[in-house]
């Protein structure tokens, strides 16, 4: 693998929480706390974790939709962490986003034609046969009828709206799209259509995806590599087969055991790991390993030393003092 398309190093995004007018105690929510990630051109990296683990914030911050607190973002070998607003505007042609809620991601007062013409207007893209033709072309590419040009978002189903959102992201012909839980608001049958559409588009254009989701099976299906996040940190990352077949981190293991199996016999026979307790507050994360408060195999050292995020086997990174397979070997 040569230079990755996107490389994120030590990314942090902290949100200050303001007290009232007179209160002084300000705390900081560490939504993203030191995430490092690489995305190669044309590949799909899945980002999974439970609600509130910072996966969406990571996706937004790596596109600089949110300003990172610290860390470094490189796109195509170029440091874009500090580029100004105008430069960022130009960069939007390279990197786009697909949103979670198809009911709020489209302006209800605009027709589909207006919504899809916006990228051309904003970015000043000249379409060879005119913007209208380009928009019709986009519509057919995402499986909608070009006839839908003059319709309003409310006349579409959730899946169709999500297709419009995808078409909008594709309009500028980006090289990277961050998909922020693009299917979690959709019916299961529709999810499959959208996932397939995203894969078809990738096969066609060689676009790279960062796929943020909490549904493990969806992520496995679409991703080449998967990173598991917990409380603003990446716990483990590997190719998806490796991660799902040989999870090293106890958290990954717990997540995987929570996902139901299609075979009821296996499902019943399987040992389930049920995590105890709640997700700790990201404004006051536990010392040492952030997962230790809920980890079934936490030891004294976990509270004292933050485990390094290290390459355990080639391409398989994990941040844990006691990766699973060593446990088994011992």
């Amino acid at each position: 693998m040569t230079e990755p398309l996107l490389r994120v190093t030590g990314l942090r995004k902290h949100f200050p929480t303001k007290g009232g007018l007179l209160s002084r105690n300000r705390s900081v929510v560490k939504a993203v706390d030191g995430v490092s990630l690489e995305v190669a051109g044309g590949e799909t990296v899945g980002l999974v974790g439970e609600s509130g683990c910072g996966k969406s914030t990571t996706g937004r911050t790596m596109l600089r939709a949110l300003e990172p607190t610290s860390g470094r973002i490189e796109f195509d070998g170029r440091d874009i962490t500090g580029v100004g607003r105008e430069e960022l505007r130009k960069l939007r042609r390279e990197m786009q986003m697909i949103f979670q809620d198809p009911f709020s991601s489209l302006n209800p007062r605009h027709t589909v034609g207006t919504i899809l013409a916006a990228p051309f207007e904003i970015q000043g893209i000249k379409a060879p046969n005119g913007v209208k033709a380009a928009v019709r072309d986009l519509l057919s590419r995402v499986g909608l009828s070009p006839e839908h040009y003059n319709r309003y978002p409310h006349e579409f189903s959730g899946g169709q709206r999500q297709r419009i959102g995808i078409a909008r992201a594709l309009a500028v012909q980006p090289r990277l799209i961050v998909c922020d839980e693009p299917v979690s608001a959709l019916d299961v049958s529709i999810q499959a259509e959208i996932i397939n559409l995203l894969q078809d588009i990738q096969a066609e254009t060689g676009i790279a995806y960062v796929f943020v989701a909490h549904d493990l099976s969806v992520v496995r299906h679409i991703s080449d590599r998967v990173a598991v996040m917990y409380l603003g940190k990446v716990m483990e990352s590997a190719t998806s087969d490796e991660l799902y077949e040989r999870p090293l981190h106890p958290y990954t293991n717990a997540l995987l055991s929570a996902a139901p199996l299609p075979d009821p016999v296996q499902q019943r026979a399987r040992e389930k790991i049920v995590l105890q307790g709640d997700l700790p507050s990201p404004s006051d994360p536990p010392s040492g390993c952030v997962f230790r408060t809920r980890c079934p195999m936490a030891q004294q050292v976990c509270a004292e030393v933050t485990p390094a995020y290290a390459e355990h086997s080639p391409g398989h990174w994990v941040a844990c003092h006691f990766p699973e397979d060593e446990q088994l070997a011992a």
Partner: protein
Amino acid sequence: MTLSAGEFAAEPVPTMVDEAQGPVAGRSPWQIARARLRANRVAMIALFMIIFFVVIAIAAPILQALGVIDTTTLHPELVQGPGAMPTGSFGGISIHHPLGVEPQTGRDLFSRILLGITLDTAIAVAATIISVGLGVVLGLVAGFYRGAADWSIGRLIDLILAFPQLLMLIALSPVLVQRITDTGVPQGNPSKITYIIAVLGFFGWPYFARIIRAQVLSLREREFVEAAEMLGARRSRINFKELLPNLWAPILVYSSIVLPTYVSAEAAMSFLGVGIVPPTPTLGNLLQDSVNYATADPTYFLAPGLTLFIVVLAFNLFGDGLRDALDPRSDRAGGK
């Protein structure tokens, strides 16, 4: 772990396009609201009444100029007796004076009411434009930029709302009207009209700014705003092209609700003696004058009073209908 990768192979999917619909013509949210409004009989009747009054408001000065109606000519021959009351029954109603004449002066009441409608609507429309305009701009700024802008606008609103409006209207009126005259506005009624419009507009915007601010606060968190930012849209584009189209509904509803309150506010101010003075007729100063003759000449009192009542009622009913049409989830539409 046997999460099979085939789980997400889609089943045969029905075509996304509904072929049966033929040529696809989108129905915009506006068209839907219009259809809903058309189905509301009360609102439609109110709308026709509003149109009727607007036609009168536009026509009255023209008719006055053409000499069809006459608001100023004195008819001493039509009043008689110690109180100079109109001759004849019902305030001197005749073919030439369909609503009778004023006591004392004998001026034609019908003409005066028509022109009064013109002036009242003009003042109300101007004040509405000012207060809604200020409210939209300041509410948008406060909601979109938040932070210091929001704070300053919020405190300004608090200040204005804490101000004793009516007191200021009455107490400061001579001074401020003089100020307006000093800036070059003709003395007398033109200055007073400017003063009324300015006061109503200035005290009217805070409520609306709050409504718009709240709307913007919720709208700007919607993902379509983020999508526009993600495409590299500038702030002006987001404000005017993404947010503003979503604010037209509250703007229209609020305008239709404040407009009648301004009509009656003008009447109230004229009644309290800080408004426009005769011979220029307004519904307010007609009413104020008529109260003196309420028992002796009830027609003089009832004609402008009922006119004011109907104008305000028509606007209010239409405003309600408009709100139901534009925001069908509002409780009143659901709870009928």
